[in-house]
């Protein structure tokens, strides 16, 4: 640890360590509600609280029965399947559309850039409940309510802004003369885009896609409006589970979701480092 300055007096020390305690408290405030779920999901009893056995760390007080229950309940299985189908399809769609939009917006000859950017980012700013209500009325006309396609389209719309933001961020560092160089060497614009632009903005594209996936994965409001019983996703199932079957199954699902989130975060960080290496030009 860093050595403290020699001129430190009592109040300096108080401030120095006080700040650390405060930071730890803020961190606990953020993390505890999430972390508390993990041990509780291994509760042998169907309660949402720590039993005496758990506090004594008695192995018999812990079990994986709620996990088994998740994987034996057809409703949970269906919702997990739905979440992945909708999430992956929506993320793919948002990634493709968002990347194209970001590349277009980065072009120096694009007119009305600010207005179009604002419009494209609006799904992130407008309250979800309004979007969901609007989509419900709009999609009804096309018979998309209560279909997988409807949910995928809706979630793709919500995910596009994230892709636009991350891809735009990587594009701001993109040297347009690379694209010109490729074209000058005889590559068609499409080939130059595929060979040069895409590999260099790939980290932004992938992290945008992951954000879009997570957005769809934990979205519940739009699902409440648009999904029928056959389109139930994990958050929707948890939502009804909270009312119908009060037991730690939900906590087991929640724990798995936390692990997935952590995995995605780690992926993002690795991608960020990789892109930084490429920018420094030392990637291998």
């Amino acid at each position, binding site marked *: 640890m860093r050595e403290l300055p020699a001129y430190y007096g009592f109040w300096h020390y108080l401030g120095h360590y006080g700040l650390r305690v405060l930071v730890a408290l803020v961190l606990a405030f953020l993390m505890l509600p999430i972390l508390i779920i993990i041990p509780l999901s291994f509760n042998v009893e169907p309660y949402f609280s720590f039993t005496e056995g758990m506090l004594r760390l008695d192995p018999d007080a812990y079990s994986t029965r709620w996990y088994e229950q998740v994987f034996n309940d057809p409703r949970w299985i269906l919702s997990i399947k739905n979440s992945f189908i909708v999430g992956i399809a929506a993320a793919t769609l948002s990634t493709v559309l968002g990347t194209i939009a970001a590349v277009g917006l980065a072009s120096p000859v694009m007119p009305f850039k600010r207005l179009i950017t604002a419009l494209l980012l609006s799904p992130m700013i407008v309250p979800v409940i309004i979007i969901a209500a609007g989509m419900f009325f709009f999609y009804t006309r096309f018979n998309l309510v209560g279909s997988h396609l409807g949910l995928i389209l809706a979630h793709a719309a919500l995910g596009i802004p994230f892709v636009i933001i991350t891809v735009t961020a990587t594009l701001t560092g993109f*040297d347009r*003369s*690379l694209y*010109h*160089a*490729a*074209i*000058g*060497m*005889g*590559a*068609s*614009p499409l*080939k*130059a885009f595929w*060979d*040069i632009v895409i*590999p*260099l903005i790939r980290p932004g594209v992938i992290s945008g896609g992951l954000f879009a996936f997570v957005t769809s994965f934990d979205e519940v409001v739009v699902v409440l409006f648009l999904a029928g019983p056959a389109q139930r996703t994990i958050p929707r199932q948890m939502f009804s589970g909270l009312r119908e079957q009060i037991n730690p199954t939900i906590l087991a699902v929640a724990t798995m979701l936390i692990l997935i989130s952590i995995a995605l975060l780690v992926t993002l960080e690795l991608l960020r480092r990789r892109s930084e290496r*490429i*920018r*420094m*030009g*030392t*990637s*291998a």
Partner: protein
Amino acid sequence: MTNTSSAYLRFQNVKKTYDHESLVVKDFSLDVAKGEFLTLLGPSGSGKSTVLMMLAGFESVTSGEISIDGVSITRLPPYKRNIGMVFQNYALFPHMTIEENLAYPLTVRNMAKAKIRDRVGEYLGLIEMQKFGKRFPGQLSGGQRQRVALARALIFEPSLVLMDEPLGALDKKLREQMQYEITRLHQMMGYTVIYVTHDQTEALSMSDRIAVFDDGIVQQCASPAELYERPRNAFVADFIGENNFIRGRVSKVEGEVVHIALPGGDTVTARAESELRHDQEAIISVRPEKLFVEPTSHASDNRVPARFVTRHYVGDFIRYYFQLSDGTEITVKVLNDLTAPNFSEGDEAGLVWLIKDCSAYPA
């Protein structure tokens, strides 16, 4: 100017405007011979880069024609023009190795793999970088990257090579080395080069011809020596190299030679670079190294008295500052040898020079 029959690259009345009001390039016409090294030289915003961008196809031509070997390329997309280009920031693809970078233009031309490998090896040898083929651009020094960029612009045997201030980002030593490298490859392979720079030393030492740009038009297009020795107008005289300018009035016209009366009462003779009439305001230019301080063994046609102000020691030469009686400042470059005179401030001296080193322009 090259004659019509030897024209390989040809600009005919090319104009460019971005806003439909002011022309960035005004009526640009120029013929370039095959194998020529032509430099577009000018201050920033003079239109030289716009000409290059139109040639490469990244900017459209407002009006006029550009043709290579008699075939118009004005309406050809950049990827069909077969023009190699070296960018100022190298524009090497950071995610590809040096070999992959060099192979790229061949790959997009669907050349056979074995042939690509041979050609890449050959060009790596040409730039003496055989050992670096598997490295990434980020692992090379600036000079090495520049050499790769050069090889990549040449490897597909383009009909023309464009270089947009390729040495701008290098330090002085490396720049001189790369100038040599570019000249060597040009002489060895004989390709046609259009080179853009604002660095006149670079332009003078490398080019067959230089087109000096200002304000969207070519002020003069000539060989480096002609440009330096016989600038056609005051802008070129000032832009290329150092120059002294003295104002006066035409007192007599004798064909190519004019007599100019200076405000201080002296009269000097100069070569008229453009039409000058009797009693017209004129400006004469004479380069600092063509001026000599009396006493001197050099022949002289003109002599004006001047007052010594100060001198700056540069190293290989010494720069003397004088003032004429009307206050005009005159710089004289004197070789740093035993004959370099010693003056103290306010000393009177005579400055002499030859008619052939002195040009007169309308003021």
